[in-house]
């Protein structure tokens, strides 16, 4: 399918509110993390929000980790 329109994709196909609520910002051991709810009680780390470069070397906060 090819669309020929000046509208943006999101105007034509609105994103479901579910995809907004799936991502949350939480705090674990004093570090803020953006996590994705996996719907089974666990969360997958999407992003670490820290300015300390050493936090990024901590294996527990690597994106993709399940917590």
């Amino acid at each position, binding site marked *: 399918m090819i669309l020929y329109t000046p509208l943006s994709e999101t105007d034509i196909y609105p*994103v479901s509110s579910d995809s907004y609520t799936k991502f949350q910002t939480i705090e674990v051991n004093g570090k803020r993390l953006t996590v994705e709810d996996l719907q089974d009680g666990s969360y997958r780390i999407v992003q670490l929000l820290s*300015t*300390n*470069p*050493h936090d990024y070397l901590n*294996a527990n906060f690597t994106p993709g980790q399940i917590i």
Partner: protein
Amino acid sequence: MTDKDIGKHEGEDQTNPPSSLVQKIQALGQTSVPTAPDSNIHVLSIIGQVEGHVQLPPQNKTTKYEHLIPQIVAIEQNPKIEGLIVVLNTVGGDVEAGLALSEMLASLSKPTVSIVLGGGHSIGVPIAVSTNYSFIAPSATMTIHPIRLTGLVIGVPQTFEYLDKMQERVIQFVTSHSNIKGEKFKELMFEKGNLTRDIGTNVIGTDAVKYGLIDEVGGIKEAMVKLNELIDQDKEDGTMIQ
């Protein structure tokens, strides 16, 4: 390895998943990863869209200003942190959020250095110039173009005036925090024929330095050297007052 051995091995894995300790030994050959001492330099990365008053759909990569502002305050307050490096690879975003971040960075008492990697477009320009010293990678670009409105736009002259004032705020900030002249910045902003679908200019690394927008072309090494130099200078000034 025989079939029996493989079967046995798989069985073990299913019943007993390797503990984190075993995983660490497997991956790194040791039980504990050495932890480095606290860093005196912190990093603020501004990636993707600068997200302000409106939450963007989740497929966008965004930097939320409500996340960054408390971090900047924490950096200002923590005496162990001596310097800040701002890494930019942004496509722009919310004008007010971007200006808020720029003002926060500009008013930080600690030495700051910014480095533009890849792109520092639109509102990335004021953020890049807000630090004490700025660097740009030779391949990085910065798009300078007029600001625009999304959403409901009322077709009255006041709308244009509002937009013009908003633009003036950006120009004002950039010219007062960098060596570029207002005239030149406006000229780049309203240039025709450079961008495919817009008015403006795409300024590449060396050109950004030539126009006085950015201080120097360089990478992470140059940025770290400069930041350490600024930290030392800051310390010297501090002891002189005492």
